[in-house]
């Protein structure tokens, strides 16, 4: 795409921006936000709309998106609690619901005596939090990520969670983002700030009502202070015609632990960027991912784990199950900076091709500048093992059931890492349904 077209795209979006998009009443307090947004607009203007000629977008053609400068979604409130019931998670005591990117207090559930802050970013009391100013837009690399810059520029509202020192939240926090409108773009945003010794489990959940075509452009930022421990479960089950563009950025301080499981099931074209940055020693992260796609879906996952400090550990496993003419892309980069000695890092990319027309592009990538490190990565691409199928057949299963069972087992290994039983069960069912669709 030419540069002018890219700028046209941005202009088109900017013209559609409502004038009072953020809480105009408290403008004097929001200088920092205006500055951030203006910078993001500048950066989006400077960065080109990505094309397959960019190394980072080589296998993911987002040009169909450029033709759809969908207007930002408008606020509606037609949804009732019964509409979202299927998506609710039994264990979660705290639920924030965003409909097309706008906070819906009626659908959300917040317990009164919270020891921690949870709410929507645009709520006046929260926007004034100095923490929001200190962290919003500070972790995600919107200076070299076009879509993250767009999200920052068009930011309407989002989820804010602040866990104070020594606060452990036992029940999972559910952040539910529902898309209901056709041909619009929603810009969801999450910001989690975990202070020293805090603990929580957060579920970031993208769902849709109906089979609309729309764009979700989301950004999540996680900041973990010393010894904070966060479980992050990310579920992307958008509509089959949707476009999902997301970035997560995680900043880890000393001894903190970040565990994430990302499940990709929906969207026609999806792209998820995950950046983890080790800012201090002895932090740990475990990242698991599963993409299960079929039809003409494309699921692209780019991860970047930056070992900037010594003695940190990272483990990553990414699996793709690719059926029909779908196309999965994985690019996992691990950087070990000079002096990041005693880094221990492992990465594995495992891919299962179920159909002759399915495509896999995987690139596990190591960039190592320190010598006293343990780094290994592996990648496999293959189909179901004939011997395993034979074994199951010898036990009386027919070929189809044997295949479905093995496919399910391949994916279930990742689901096992989800610490929320009811969600795990729901996703297991979803995967089971997908595998048995072939019968």
């Amino acid at each position: 795409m030419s540069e002018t077209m890219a700028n046209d795209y941005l202009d088109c979006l900017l013209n559609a921006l409502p004038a009072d998009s953020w809480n105009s009443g408290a403008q004097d307090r929001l200088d920092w936000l205006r500055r951030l947004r203006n910078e993001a607009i500048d950066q989006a203007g400077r960065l080109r709309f990505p094309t397959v000629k960019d190394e980072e977008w080589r296998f993911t053609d987002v040009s169909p998106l450029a033709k759809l400068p969908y207007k930002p979604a408008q606020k509606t409130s037609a949804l009732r609690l019964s509409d979202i019931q299927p998506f609710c998670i039994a264990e979660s005591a705290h639920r924030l619901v965003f409909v097309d990117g706008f906070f819906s207090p009626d659908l959300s559930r917040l317990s009164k005596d919270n020891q921690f802050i949870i709410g929507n970013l645009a709520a006046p009391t929260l926007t004034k939090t100095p923490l929001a100013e200190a962290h919003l837009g500070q972790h995600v690399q919107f200076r070299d990520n076009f879509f993250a810059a767009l999200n920052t520029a068009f930011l309407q509202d989002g989820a804010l969670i602040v866990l104070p020192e020594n606060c452990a939240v036992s029940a999972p926090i559910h952040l539910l983002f529902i898309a209901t409108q056709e041909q619009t773009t929603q810009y969801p945003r999450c910001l989690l700030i975990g202070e020293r010794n805090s603990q929580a489990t957060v579920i970031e959940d993208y769902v849709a009502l109906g089979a609309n075509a729309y764009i979700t452009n989301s950004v999540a930022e996680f900041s973990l202070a010393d010894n904070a421990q966060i479980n992050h479960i990310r579920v992307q089950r958008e509509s089959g015609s949707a476009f999902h563009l997301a970035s997560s950025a995680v900043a880890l301080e000393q001894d903190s632990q970040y565990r994430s499981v990302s499940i990709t099931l929906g969207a026609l074209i999806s792209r998820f960027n995950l950046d983890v940055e080790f800012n201090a020693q002895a932090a740990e992260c475990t990242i698991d991912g599963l993409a299960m796609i079929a039809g003409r879906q494309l699921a692209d996952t780019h991860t970047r784990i930056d070992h900037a400090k010594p003695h940190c550990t990272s483990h990553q496993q990414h699996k793709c199950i690719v059926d029909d003419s779908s196309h999965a892309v994985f690019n996992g980069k691990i950087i070990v900076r000079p002096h990041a000695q005693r880094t221990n890092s492992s990465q594995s990319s495992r891919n299962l091709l179920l159909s002759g027309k399915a495509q896999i592009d995987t690139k596990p990538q190591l960039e190592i500048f320190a010598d006293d490190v343990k780094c290994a990565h592996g990648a496999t691409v293959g189909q179901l093992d004939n011997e395993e199928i034979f074994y199951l057949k010898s036990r009386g299963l027919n070929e189809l059931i044997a295949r479905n069972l093995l496919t399910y087992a391949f994916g279930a290994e990742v689901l096992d890492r989800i610490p929320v039983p009811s969600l795990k069960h729901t996703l297991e069912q979803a995967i089971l349904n997908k595998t048995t669709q072939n019968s």
Partner: protein
Amino acid sequence: MSAALQNLVNQPYKHGFVTNIESYVAPKGLNEETIRLISAKKDEPEWLLNFRLEAFQKWLTMTEPHWQNVKFPKIDYQAISYYAAPKPKNKLASMDEVDPELLRTFEKLGVPMHERAALAGVAVDVIFDSVSVATTYKEKLAEVGIIFCSISEAVHNHPELVRQYLGSVVPVGDNFFAALNSAVFTDGSFCYIPKGVKCPMDLSTYFRINTQDSGQFERTLIIAEEGASVSYLEGCTAPQFDTNQLHAAVVELVALDHADIKYSTVQNWYAGDENGIGGIYNFVTKRGLAKGVNSRISWTQVETGSAITWKYPSCILRGDNSIGEFYSVAVTNHHQQADTGTKMIHIGKNTRSTIISKGISAGKSNSSYRGLVRIAPTAENARNFSQCDSMLVGDQSGAHTFPYIQVRNNSAKVEHEASTSKIGEDQLFYLAQRGIDAEEAVSMIVNGFCKEVFQQLPMEFAVEATKLLSFKLENSVG
């Protein structure tokens, strides 16, 4: 890195000397005139001139690639002399007529031609700068119908073969440096193994850059007919210069049905001094086409020299059941940069490929493995195994891995694994308590690390490579 380790990687370049032979050097610069001059000097047929001109036109439209993980100052392509040849002499009847100065050069390099030819049974087609000076064992090879000569000779004596295959694996506009080579290549080797012939000896060419500032643009073309097999050795050394020299070679291999080509390289161009001054830029395009069924192409390389190495010996596995192999050791020290790897393009059914890559980085050097495994939709039951291991010596070097895996067929099986390690203090300690000094211990550990690749090398090369590695890493560990 401890002080003892420090004292062990810094061996000066042993092959650094300039031979004073009168040579004809073309004026600097590149334009159509230069190409016509080269073509005229070499008395080439019209079609080859057109081939060069087409490549030059393509080259003009291309830009220098910058995606590779190496840094170098801008190359002024107009400041290079594109043709250097020793002054023409009468045709040589025997080795005695060869310029004694030239012979001494080979002596210093440890390649006494007659000795090597006689004792080792190796036919050496000696490339000195750009013109082939002496070819030995030609007759013996001619007996079985093998053509092994310089490419300029082949152009005159076997134009139909050269014309058919030149540019068939690496097209003139393949990449920036291949286009440049196609436009200005001066000489190289040509090898043709006829149907059903197993080459009775390892064929070997010694390349040598001599004239200061003269870029080397070698062209190698090897064709193995149905059922033929050949093992080809390429070894490189270059004198010590301060200005950077560009080396942009192209190697094309064609294997027809049931043919087998094994191509081994030991590359030890001048790498620059310990401050990264000088050294060769080695920007090479090597590609083999496994065209026929059951054909096999095997690349083995030991890369120890050059300031910058940038090459990806590749296999296009077009024939059903064809096999591609890549075995590589890349050693970098001081400020050297290496971005090397392979491409395995699976097109035919039941094609198999193996990639074993070992990278060792010492000093302030950086080495990258960059590989592509592509399984086309037609490649039923394709199989690939890749292993890339890196060893870091000292905390200022870098090791990088960029493996691209693209699978378009679900019956394929692709595996890739990579690891990074260092020479452990406890390994050194263990060997020390067995009475082995640090230097020898490092050499042992490194050779063990590279063993899988060295095993693939022909005997003489394996010995040479082991030695090369130990003196390359002398004083780097301690």
